[in-house]
């Protein structure tokens, strides 16, 4: 039905006629923000800036992306291990067993099916919590639940050391670019980056540990500790039990493996921090921060590093992946009862379910770390839209 106004003329759609010229607020001096990224039809006040609900959506979208990613990477991990152990039944049943026994074993474990079907069977069981049983009779899920927290503790401590040491030395290198502190830092991180993990770990045990008087084996000097281990995080467990001497002891045991892991993986973080600080330091907004009257410390760490960190976060995910793979060797050398040691033992004892389980947990860990880095990047860089 056509509405008619008093003049007898059909009224157009609202906001069309005169409002085309009068509708917007157009004061003389309004040179407003650029609405480049959002549709100009949206209201000014509601869409500018990023809101908390946008952040939830941003994180949610990335979490959804995690599902196909995990299916993909775990498939690759599963297939690679199947290639490494083409027929575990031969190992399990024994080389001299009857072929009928081997065939029965294959049928029992579903090994006569195509590898893709095997993967989906495994995935189904994995999701149901049935991760297979190690030859020793212990369920893989139980072992991983026990070993993984120790690895987590090691990796998080190493990451903390990288952030607290690797980033500041990158800043110092950028500030003294071309002078001796810069060269010293470069030798430090390139040396760490170029050293193979096994070599670095062994050097730490043989040469560094006795010099510093640090323990090199296990989580506590006296294992098992006289208190329950609900979290399997050595320091946390001791603190929960209120046993401070044990907590200190656990911290000392944690220090050297974590420092070794951190030092060997610090390279990209330091380098990235240095190069992005070099790009940021001569910019005008660093000068204008200085001209505000801020101390050099605030200029560097509140203004310059804040933007330089945006590019550093992109490599943090890669670094965590490096730390996770480094644990396999470092945990073995330092007798750290973590997932790396479990994986090493599983591989050397042809424990296929254990190997697959550990590999998949490592993969998920690396993917999750990259996801976190991705989210952190989006939070740190205001130019990333949360839509």
């Amino acid at each position, binding site marked *: 039905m056509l509405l008619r106004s008093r003049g007898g003329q059909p009224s157009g759609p609202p906001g069309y006629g005169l409002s085309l010229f009068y509708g917007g607020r157009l*004061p003389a*001096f*309004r*040179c*407003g*923000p*650029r609405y480049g990224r959002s549709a100009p039809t949206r209201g*000014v*006040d509601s869409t*500018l*800036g990023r809101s908390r609900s946008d952040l939830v959506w941003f994180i949610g979208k990335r979490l959804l992306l995690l599902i196909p990613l995990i299916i993909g990477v775990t498939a690759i991990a599963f297939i690679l291990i199947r290639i490494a152990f083409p027929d575990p039944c031969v190992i399990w049943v024994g080389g001299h067993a009857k072929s009928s026994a081997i065939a029965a074993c294959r049928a029992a474990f579903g090994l006569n099916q195509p590898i893709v079907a095997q993967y989906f069977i495994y995935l189904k069981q994995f999701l149901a919590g049935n991760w297979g049983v190690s030859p020793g009779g212990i369920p893989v899920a139980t072992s991983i639940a026990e070993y993984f927290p120790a690895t987590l503790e090691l990796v998080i401590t190493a990451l903390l050391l990288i952030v607290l040491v690797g980033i500041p030395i990158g800043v110092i290198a950028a500030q003294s670019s*071309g002078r001796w502190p810069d060269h010293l830092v470069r030798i430090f991180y390139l040396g760490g980056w170029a050293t193979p993990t096994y070599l670095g770990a062994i050097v730490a045990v043989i040469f560094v540990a006795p010099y510093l008087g640090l323990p090199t084996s296990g989580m506590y000097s006296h294992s098992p500790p006289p208190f329950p281990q609900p979290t399997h995080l050595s320091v946390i467990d001791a603190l929960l039990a209120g046993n401070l001497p044990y907590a200190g002891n656990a911290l000392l045991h944690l220090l050297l493996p974590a420092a070794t892991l951190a030092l060997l993986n610090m390279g990209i973080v330091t380098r990235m921090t240095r190069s992005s600080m070099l790009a940021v330091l*001569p*910019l*005008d*907004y660093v*000068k*204008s*921060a*200085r*001209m*505000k*009257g*801020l*101390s*050099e*410390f*605030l200029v560097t760490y509140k*203004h310059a590093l*804040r*933007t330089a960190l*945006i590019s550093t976060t992109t490599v943090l995910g890669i670094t965590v992946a490096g730390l996770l793979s480094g644990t396999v060797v470092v945990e073995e050398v330092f007798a750290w009862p973590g997932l790396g040691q479990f994986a090493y033992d599983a591989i050397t004892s042809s424990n296929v379910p254990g190997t697959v389980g550990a590999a998949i947990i490592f993969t998920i860990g690396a993917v999750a770390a990259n996801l976190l880095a991705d989210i952190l990047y989006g939070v*740190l*860089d*205001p*130019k990333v839209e949360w839509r």
Partner: protein
Amino acid sequence: MTDAPVLVVDDLSVDYEVAAGRFHALSNVSFEMLPGRVTGIVGETGCGKSTLAHAIPGLLPSPPARIRSGKVVFQGTDLTALPRWKLPTVRGTGIGMVFQEPLNSLNPAYRVFDQVAEAIRVRRLREKGAVRARSGGGPFDYSRGPATTPTSTIGRPFLPGGPVEERMRSPPVRSPEIRTEVLEALRLVRINDPETILRLYPHELSGGMRQRIMIAQTLAERPSLLIADEPTSALDVTIQAQVLTLMKELIDEIRTSILFISHDLGVIAEMADDVGVMYAGRVIEFGPVASVFEHPRHPYTRALLRAAPDRSKADGPLESIPGSVPSLARLPGGCAFHPRCVYARPNCGENPGPSLRPVDPADPLGHRSACWYAAEIP
């Protein structure tokens, strides 16, 4: 104006030492700024204007730049002699600066509010123990004349926490008091909807808007000296006009001392009270704008003014200055301009070159020129 000058630049020489050689970016620059006056610095690209602007608050990056001689005396303190860690105490509330590139001069990672609030917080921390009597008037009451930096704050760098008493003096960043001041600061630069703007990040704003915020942030600290280093050169022509109008209005409102740097003679003529003309790293003429622009007493100033387009003149080719600007690595001896000067005489190339001398010996702080034959310029 018989007050003591707010800034005295005395015989300042700055070199850039790079692999290609040593560049004399500034040679024996001397001038003084009286409180409440706008001093323009004009010159071609590469004549040392920006170096001068950066040298005053000690912003020059130290490995390539080296202060060869001279002093920068700000409110009685020689900034070149001040240890590096004390410089922050002079910046902000003492000397504020607006940069050429508005696109880069705000930190992309912080919202407008946080950046302006930070400046206000620095000022509030310094105001502790200030001699300024504050009664009546809004937060932006400049009618009492330019603010003075309380000498007690010199030598006390602004550190994250500061002593407890100082922290108690300055309200936290999120307090309504600071918010009101931020809104005031944004309104001062004619931003119509500051409530919206302060939530935005710099990349969501246009170049002109960012320059306004930069100006707001700098003025929020109420500096005794404001250095504006070509604040409009990087903007579109229409926005340039808006920002210039704004600055002109602000000059009348805040009555602080301003060092206004530009390559645009017209802008300087409109904004400044005094003008210094720079050539090849030297100030070759200095004096009140009207006197310098109407009766230039240096051949370079005269040639520069004749080269500027003038609508009142008939069409025809613009005049140009013969030759080209000398390299700062190999300056000619004597007067740096003599190879291009139509009035040059044989002794113009002899060392030492002329320094600024009053045109009228009776007025030593008036119109000055660095030409041996200043009196003979037609």
